């Protein structure tokens, strides 16, 4: 199983991971030049926050072994794929109850900002070998590892 690892002390809060995520999920194209940075529909599934010591903290979905978002999901929209280890989200099944948002121990999940309906959930860039957030990280604060099941 592949996982995104975070070395938060290397994070410079450049927001490269945030841009990478928006680029990959942009319906208009996959190049940085296709990304309209003024369009509210472009939303990132990860975010960078500032902690109590004023240090940047990249907040990125861990695809937990025992995911709280799946446990609390009443409609079956959040599921753990046992084969890939990924926590997957089906927006068609989602009832927008936001229990997942409330229960995520990392505070990564949020509702989309325009309609407040869909959960912005990391999909590990589907079939991409290296997720865009990792690719866009200039300090290697984000990196990939292969973990045992």
């Amino acid at each position, binding site marked *: 199983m592949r996982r995104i690892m975070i070395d938060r002390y290397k994070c410079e809060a450049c927001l490269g991971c945030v*841009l990478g995520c928006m680029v990959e999920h942009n319906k208009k194209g996959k190049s940085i030049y296709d990304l309209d940075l*003024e369009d509210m529909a472009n939303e990132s599934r990860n975010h960078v926050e500032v902690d109590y010591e004023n240090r940047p903290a990249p907040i990125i979905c861990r695809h937990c072994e025992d995911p709280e978002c799946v446990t609390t999901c009443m409609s079956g929209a959040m599921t753990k794929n046992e084969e890939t280890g990924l926590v997957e989200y089906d927006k068609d099944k989602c009832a927008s109850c936001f229990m997942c948002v409330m229960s995520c121990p990392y505070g990564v999940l949020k509702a989309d900002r325009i309609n407040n309906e869909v959960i912005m959930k990391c999909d590990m860039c589907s079939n991409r070998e290296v997720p865009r957030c990792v690719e866009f*990280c200039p300090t290697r604060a984000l990196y990939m590892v292969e973990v045992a099941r």
Partner: protein
Amino acid sequence: MTLNWMGLNMRKFKTSLYLEIKVYLKGKRYLKGYKIKGGFNMAVNVKTATCESADKILESFIADLDFDTCHHRIGTQDIKCGFGLQGVCCKLCANGPCRVTPDSPKGVCGATADTIVARNFLRAVSAGSACYLHIVEKAAWNLMETGKNKGNIKGKDSLDELASLFGIAEDDEYEKAIKIGERVLGDLYKPRFERMELVEKLTYKPRYDRWQELGILPGGAKSEVFDSLIKTSTNLNSDPVDMLLHALRLGICTGLYGLFLTNRLNDIMLGEPKIRLASVGFKVLDTDYINIMTTGHQHSLFAHLEEALTTDHAREKAREAGAKGFKLIGSTCVGQDMQLRGEHNQEVFAGHTGNNFTSEALIATGAIDLVISEFNCTFPGLESISEELMIKMICIDDVAKKANAELVEYSYEDREKISSYVIEEAIKSYQNRRDKVVINIPENHGNDNTLTGISEDSLRDFLGGSYKPLIDLIAKGYIKGVAGIVGCSNLVSGGHDVFTVKLTKELIKRDILVLSAGCSSGGLENVGLMSPEAADLAGGLLREVCKDLGIPPVLNFGPCLSIGRLEQVATELASILNVDLPQLPLVLSAPQWLEEQALADGAFGLALGLPLHLAKPPYITGSKLVTKVLTEDLEELTGGRLILDDDVVSTANRLEAIILAKRVALGI
């Protein structure tokens, strides 16, 4: 000296990184006969693979180098900041850096993406413009001093031509030179509210009228740069359109003064270009000579040295040191200028070796004894290689001062002293280093038959005294149109010169004649596209023309300054046809632009009303307004527009379509 890990050359596996175990001799790997004290130091060196080059001999030479060059470092900088790429990062004040995102669409001050992008863009154009204005300023001072001291005037035709254009009535040639210099400097130093006087004399009438209508006739050039810095400072101008118009004004300053006039002033002092075949590439290096490499853009700063190196005294000193003599090794644009005017300096000038991203490889050959720099492109990367190879660095204009270079500021008054000092230091360096360093020159790099010496005048002479024959060839369809391939090389558009060479080949295949000026021409000449044999790569009709005339399908106008000469060619074509420049079947592309200077050149091209292609967007796409004005609306204003395309074939299709549409509009 190099052992590859487990006997395998990992580079063959095309991994981006490979481990190489090196045996270091106390860090002095390149010194022959170095005494090893305390045995070997073993170190594991993680070496980055190098990027692709259009020039394959250069590519493999650099890949095998044990020096760190731009071609190695590009891999270590491959993650680019998306905000930077889109031009929406602002650090003009302490509240920054501010970046535009959907969550934060404005900077703290309230600046929108349009304002931030326009400010960044204008700053870049004004810095580029400042660079070219520095070059013409120095050339004008040198011309005045040449006149006052009754120095060498090699280009008498240019002198008379410019004097009559400026309306200077003097008979004495030295007086003419002084007056020409004064008129140029007088304009450069005007305040912004006073229009420069020479603009009208230097501009094709329909263009001048258009600029006047648009209100973009520039005031004093240096003041235009100065005020653009004010405009783009913290919490001043926030109007994107006003800033883009200012960029056009700077483009006009750059083109007419920085480019066109620099060429003509240098032609007066150093002689006019004459068409001839010349040797290019690393093959011009001859280790029997004391080799002085040049980097920069200011040919007039070498006028005295070129002569001093050919004196009996210099020859004698070189022989005493054990060398056959001195050679000037052309590198970057000043090397292109020396090659362009090579007819006047055949004894000492060895030839042009290559462009910006070839310069580190050039000194890494070990065959260079001294580097004289006076402007860009003088990469900081030269420093560590020159230290390891014990190469003396002298800088003669502090704007290009390298950290390890000795500053010997050029002045006309001290020219003799400076030339003597350079000669002394070159001899000292030659004697000190040649038995201690390894010389490693790639075989068969470059060629002996690059057509050079092409200028607006020499090409007209070649065509029989008028551009009419060229127009006839265009009208009859033998030449579909003309493309100016200009600008730099960068390492991001496919690699070094990769996009430039591919696009050029694509255009000539479609019977489009290519004229090149800038670092682009350095790349094109080394891969043989500027040799008459390259006619075979052109489309059938263009090939026939080239074979008849014995010319290549890609004409070498030399340095980036010669973009000013391309403008003159365009003006002559337009005036014979009695049309304005935007109507010509003429396109510009600076496919691999690198520097702020290239953006100032680009602003000139847009002011002239020409379509201008760039492979990499100039950090503007974060603003819809700036992008729309430059890529669409500008066509209604000047006639020019920006074309952004990073695909070779798609670019060629678009440029060809523009040429065909303009042919239809002209009824040919």
